[in-house]
């Protein structure tokens, strides 16, 4: 089994599905001959032909609109947005058409499509290349929103997203594209959507995160362990629909919850998780729910980027505050 990066895992999953299912097509800016801005589609056009891996003009609303038409007519398009923030021009398509097609046609037409986008900050990119808009997207009924945190999950969850009969937004944490390698067998085995992964079991506090922040969160859990605090760590993975049950079960066990995400604080998906746990799990809470998030500002340029993003220390500090709360 080769050890591959997250971006290579994405490439592997795309290749697997292109081969397995002739209805699968890829479209986007530079995805064809060029292999994509991050090389996610590297070599696919050469291998599967330019009518399966289609270079499009630089127009995101058109890419999304094209995908709607393809999916409505039986293809399984996988559209790439070069960065999550460039999805905004496609928002009309995403919000008003992609998310509602099944509802408006009373189930006659579903859109089996995926929009992939590199997501999140921490790579010293300009500010509109570093956003974390998962909460905006998860707010839209009718969309699934998936964020893998490591290469294996990128492979397994992307396969599941492509095979899902409904539209899925698949956000790839670009900071993790190349920092971790997993040994992955290209066996076509998908991972379940809509289910959290409990990556580490613990008894004193539940740490919940997703995407790139899983790495800081797991590191924080390691350090907390050394300080005698046993943290359970949950990778949300599917932002929407949210698997709140797994989180509630964990909170019922630990009594404390800290949510870590890199998006701005207000209205972040951390807020939604906190709200749901307050509704259903209040009686298990021994301390207020903690959030470690970005700040309510646009992602700053790179010199302040580290200050913006939750650090291991910030997570530990908040976790300790909650555990020591009396």
């Amino acid at each position, binding site marked *: 089994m080769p050890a591959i990066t997250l971006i290579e895992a994405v490439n592997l999953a795309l290749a697997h599905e292109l081969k397995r299912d002739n209805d699968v097509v890829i479209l986007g*800016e*530079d995805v064809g001959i*060029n*292999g994509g*801005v*991050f*090389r996610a589609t*590297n070599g696919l056009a050469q291998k599967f032909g330019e009518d399966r891996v289609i270079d499009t003009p*630089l127009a995101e609303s058109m890419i999304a609109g094209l995908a709607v038409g393809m999916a409505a007519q039986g293809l399984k398009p996988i559209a790439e947005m*070069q960065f999550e923030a460039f999805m905004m021009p496609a928002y009309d398509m995403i919000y008003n058409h992609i998310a509602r097609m099944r509802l408006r046609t009373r189930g006659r037409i579903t859109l089996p499509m995926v929009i992939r986008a590199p997501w999140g900050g*921490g*790579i*010293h*990119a*300009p500010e509109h*290349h570093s956003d974390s808009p998962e909460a905006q997207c998860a707010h839209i009924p009718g969309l699934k929103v998936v964020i893998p945190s*490591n*290469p*294996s999950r990128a492979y397994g969850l992307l396969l599941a997203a492509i095979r899902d009969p409904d539209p899925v937004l698949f956000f790839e944490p*670009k*900071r993790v*594209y*190349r*920092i*971790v*390698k*997993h*040994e*992955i067998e290209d066996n076509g*085995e998908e*991972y*379940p959507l*809509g*289910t*959290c*992964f*409990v*990556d580490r079991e613990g008894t004193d506090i539940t740490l919940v995160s997703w995407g790139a922040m899983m790495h800081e969160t797991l590191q924080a859990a390691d350090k907390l362990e050394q300080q005698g605090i046993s943290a359970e760590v949950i*990778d949300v*993975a599917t932002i929407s629909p949210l*698997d709140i*049950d*797994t989180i509630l*079960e964990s909170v*019922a*066990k*630990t*009594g404390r919850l800290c949510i870590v995400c890199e998006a701005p604080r207000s209205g972040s998906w951390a807020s939604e998780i906190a709200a749901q746990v307050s509704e259903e799990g*209040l*009686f*298990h*809470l*021994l*301390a*207020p729910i903690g959030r470690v998030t970005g700040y309510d500002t646009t992602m700053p340029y*790179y*010199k302040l*980027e*580290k200050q913006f993003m939750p650090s291991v220390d910030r997570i530990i500090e908040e976790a300790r505050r909650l555990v020591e709360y*009396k």
Partner: protein
Amino acid sequence: MAYVFELPDLGEGLPDATIVKWLVNEGDTVKTDQPIAEMETAKAVVEVPSPVDGTVLKLHGKAGDVIITHAPLVTFGEAGKKAAAPAPAPAPSMHAQVAANAEKASATSGGGEVFYLPDLGEGLPDATIVKWLVKEGDTVKTDQPIAEMETAKAVVEVPSPHDGVIAKLHGKAGDVIITHAPLVTFAGKGGAAKAEEKSEPEAKGGDAGTVVGAVQVGNTIVAESSDAVVRALAKKLGVNLASVKGSGAGGKITQADVKGAAGKSTASVAASASTMPSASVSTDNPLAFRASPAVRKLANELGVDLANCETSGPKGTITRDDVKAASSGKPAARTAAPATVQPAASGGRLQPVSVTVHPEAVRGVRRAMAQAMTHSHQTVVPVTLMEDANISRWKKGEDSLARYVRALCAAAKVEPALNCWFDGENMERLVHPAVHVGIAVDTPDGLYVPVVKDAHNKSMADLRGDVEILRKKIAEKAIKPTDLSGATITLSNYGSIAGRYGTPIVSPPQVAILGCGRFRNELKMTERGIENQRMLPLSLSFDHRACTGGEGARFLAAVIADLEKPE
């Protein structure tokens, strides 16, 4: 001093680039921004500009060679020093501005491994060498300080990135080293250790002033924990993992096993539904009780153990009323039959000694006592003086309690330092003009300390009367908080039960407490020969932070003097 220009990040998100063609030769003089090489990345061929004016001393590689990002590309001669910082990489195309920035690592070049001065602050351009802590030829260990460097902010020690032998120190004390310029060169490959990942991607010059991104490049190989995935899948499909037989290595359950089990039976769905942890009966675990944070806070304030509360709320939750009821001493409605099974031993809590006797929650007055004593123990620095008073001359039927109170008042006049409050945190003391005597009263519920106010102004009869009133209030549970607060000194008359000397516990912010032991008869030499005398043992504890030993001793002497008066 030569300046080594490292291959900047070329705006692609890839860790290296291939030399297509050198545009300069060794020995050439170049200007800032003059293209020096054509490099091919996975995406494009770009020209790399010179970061400085200077002479090309050495080209690191030839056409066709792959250069790792941030490895040396060109070494410039003396003139190169003038440059403040490496120039930015060529502006990448607008829609593809993200580039790889190889992990911060010392790159291998010609003779040895060069360690470049990392950014010692947040974007500091340079630092001055204060002192070398090693010399050329030294063997160093990872993290061993190699130099003291002064930045605009502070003098910091720069640690070695790995084990190795120092081949060259780039500069001497007083020299300014530009951030990311060479600091030391290690001999050979710098030992076995590859530079540890420093996770400081912005530390490289390639980012300065550019608008590129830096996708971190690492090589950490990890195995996905299949457990988390299998559990998630089982949950999704409603499969009870306990009933699944694993076909993987060592009996491990695989995704296929879970899918197989899901296909076979839907009955297992019910079994898996009860994954919520069942309410534990152990009072050890606060989560054994369903109570909102506000209710828990109230219970904490009232000193009520949730184990002693009814659960009258929905779904067996404890309400505020349940806590209040438990606090007011209403018998707990939890009349569950005594467990016939001894609870499993659990960390640190008292274990029941038989099946019919269980540890009871310490609450109410008893709990307050425990907390007050803990507080005292943690804050006060106590010392206890012990001495006897000869009370042989007391009249028959003398009211001993009133005498003790009077003696305290008399002593407070002689030595006011003990009739005092002390705040050790703010280092303040408050010497009281009035004497309010707290009197420790033992009851079945626990310790009460009602206060006789303005004892210094009262007659013996009044003092006795006050004490009786307070005792009655305690018996009738009518004692008010105001009756229990404001003592300036305390009296503990344990001698009415038993005990000669003691080590009474000071109750902060008070600084002193007098313990009166049990009278005893003793043969004493007197002017009239050997006589039977009545002796009263006294134990005076005081907070040595607030009073000197002399003050304590003078106070005790004054107490004795008053007690030894005939009336």
